């Protein structure tokens, strides 16, 4: 068992890398990816996609994270594709143009065929022509951004990627724009979104790790390269070590998103989120510390990569809420498995 990409996954990741490296020449990265059909990896085959799963996405999104690409690959390509594929015939028809997935929560209410409320921080909504909303009741809704009563507040995230807050005021839904219900769709997409941002953060984290390792080997102080100081060596080993473990968890999370094992998926995704909010946060702080002053400048590329990891940490549920979910899962699982008779005991 190793997680090296298979030849097909590698080929696709390489195609992405080539487009990122060309940096928008002659066409923009987004247009070029579109022209090469690379934005429809996860889309259903009848919509011109390849039906790729979450595990297939990991090498691609890691490549994006490492390259610092700002294109809305997750919100406006991977996630709407996953949503449409999973929803299948229950999905509403979507028009041509840019589609962005919106994971709505209870701040958005549907009553009498009208949507009222808001959804905040939607990555990729800045480029969308159509919003593909996933409602908490597991239905998808296709809505043009020009719909009456809908307004978008567009901005950049910390790491330069685009996003928007969406405000709905009595937005009327046209006939046929609301799909049927797909059991568990909303929860699954929330986990898939967390997994996708984690895969992107993995690429950024690997780049941070390599950059820091290289810096320690070249930078000299007190007449010696930094890597000759044991305190710095050990800090670097911790970064390397935690990144390897994070890599394992990201692949596990992707694999579980592709499986039917819901409990295991939730465990794996919440573990990834705990890592992002714990060990990975510590790792990027340590990488900045190991660089010294240069690490806190905007010019040096470390900062942008670090912010990418922070974005993955902040979006799709807090580290604390995922910790609580993981604890709840453990408690439920342990109660279910009463193979050994419990010996209840009060220690108060």
């Amino acid at each position, binding site marked *: *068992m*190793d*997680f090296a990409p298979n030849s097909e996954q590698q080929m696709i990741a390489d195609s992405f890398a080539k487009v990122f490296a060309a940096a928008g020449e002659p066409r923009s990265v987004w247009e070029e990816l579109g022209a090469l059909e690379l934005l429809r990896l996860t889309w259903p085959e009848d919509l011109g996609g390849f039906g790729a799963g979450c595990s297939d996405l990991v090498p691609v999104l890691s490549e994006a994270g490492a390259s610092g690409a700002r294109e809305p690959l997750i919100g406006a390509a991977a996630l709407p594709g996953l949503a449409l594929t999973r929803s299948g015939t229950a999905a509403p028809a979507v028009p041509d143009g840019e589609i962005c997935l919106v994971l709505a929560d209870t701040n958005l209410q549907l009553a009498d065929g009208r949507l009222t409320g808001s959804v905040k921080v939607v990555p990729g909504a800045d480029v969308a022509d159509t919003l593909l909303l996933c409602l908490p009741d597991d239905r998808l809704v296709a809505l043009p951004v020009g719909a009456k009563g809908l307004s978008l507040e567009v901005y950049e995230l910390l790491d330069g990627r685009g996003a928007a807050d969406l405000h709905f005021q009595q937005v009327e839904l046209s006939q046929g724009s609301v799909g049927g219900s797909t059991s568990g769709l909303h929860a699954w997409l929330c986990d898939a979104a967390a997994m996708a941002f984690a895969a992107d953060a993995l690429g950024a984290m690997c780049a941070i790790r390599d950059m820091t*390792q290289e810096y*320690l*080997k070249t930078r000299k102080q007190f007449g010696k390269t930094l*890597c*000759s100081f*044991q305190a710095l*060596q*050990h800090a*670097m*080993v*911790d970064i*390397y*070590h935690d990144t*390897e*473990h*994070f*890599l*394992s*968890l990201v*692949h*596990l999370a992707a*694999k*579980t998103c592709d*499986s039917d*094992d819901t409990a*295991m998926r939730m*465990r*794996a995704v*919440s*573990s*990834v989120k*705990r*890592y992002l909010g*714990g060990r990975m946060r510590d790792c990027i702080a340590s990488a900045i510390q190991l660089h010294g002053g240069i690490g806190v400048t905007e010019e040096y590329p470390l900062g942008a990569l670090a912010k990418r990891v922070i974005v993955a940490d902040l979006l799709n549920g807090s580290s604390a809420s995922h*910790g*609580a979910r*993981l*604890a*709840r899962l*453990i*408690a439920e*699982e*342990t*109660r279910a498995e009463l193979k*050994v008779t*419990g*010996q*209840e*005991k*009060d*220690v*108060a």
Partner: protein
Amino acid sequence: MDLFYTQADIAFRDEVRAFLDNHLPQDLSETFFNYKRHSWEQMIRWHKILAEKGWVAANWPVEYGGTGWTPMQQYIFDSEAMMAGAPRLRPFGLKMIGPVLMRFGTDAQKERFLPRILSAQDYWCQGFSEPGAGSDLASLKTRAVRDGDTYIVNGQKTWTTTAQHANWMFTLVRTDPQADKPQAGISMLLIDLDNPGVTIRPIRTIDGDHHVNEVFLEDVRVPANLLVGEENAGWTCAKFLLGNERVSIANVGQSKAEMSLLKRLARDRRINGVALIDDPAFGAKLADLEADFLAQEVTNLRMLSGIKPGGDVGPLASLLKLRGSEIQQRIQELAMEAAGADAAPWRADRAAGGGKGDDYGIHGWLTSRAFTIFGGSSEVMKNIVAKQTLGL
């Protein structure tokens, strides 16, 4: 990890489960599920049951009487056995000197010793550390002087785990005090502990147990055919052996079982009427431990997937030992916390474990302090990873 299993892996797991159902003695699993530690007698009994089945040497190639299992199969077997409450087989023969003899030993040594490891006729201990050579193992002073076809050995070994049960000790000795580097003058000798001149004294550890010993060697005569590999090339054998030792210390299968035991303990404990497993502060610690354990479980399988039975684990071992030892300590720490004040009374025989897990955690916590020290301390592991893996 079922997600990563092939059809063959699932069939194998079912075979292992069926075997455990039928052959794991009830008193062994009861010991585990009652939060007690297995006795030496229980461990040896299980060793012999596995030997009978041909499953005792999970990590050996078939030609030496091993199973030839893939790393995934080894992990499936190990975690299933541990989860069923089987004792952990000690690594000294099976995981340490066995693979060294396969790689560096003479044919005569292989024929003489390997079958006796399988059958548990011999039980081995490790004569590496000395009072002045702990983390700095290469500074060891135990001297072996060649006298015709024997070596005469003088010195002192320490932290010798289970020497009180062993009849053989694989031993690092200094054969060339004049060598350029300390590592260059070291050899590995196999020493029969029944030899005249060998004295074993117990060392009590902070958990109240007798795990480790001092071993004194005074004019012990060792036949020269019990030298492993070349004279003065013992460091090569030692490094190979330490790699396997470190992976064995990472002990993921046992951690998996102890995680499940910890969860049961937290489920069954109540504080002011609330199950501990529902306490948010305790739950958060348990959740982080779970995340770290999952990451470790996948990382170990990922990293070991390319290693063949009897193969060299190289610098990976240091990395795996680091987190593995830390996770075991944290499991015990939470088990200690779960018992609260009931863990505080000192019991004369802690090794046997108290009722209902009261002193399971505190005993384990005290015992496990050694895990980040023996087999190479965490700090030494980081030095090795920094140098060998990261090139710092």
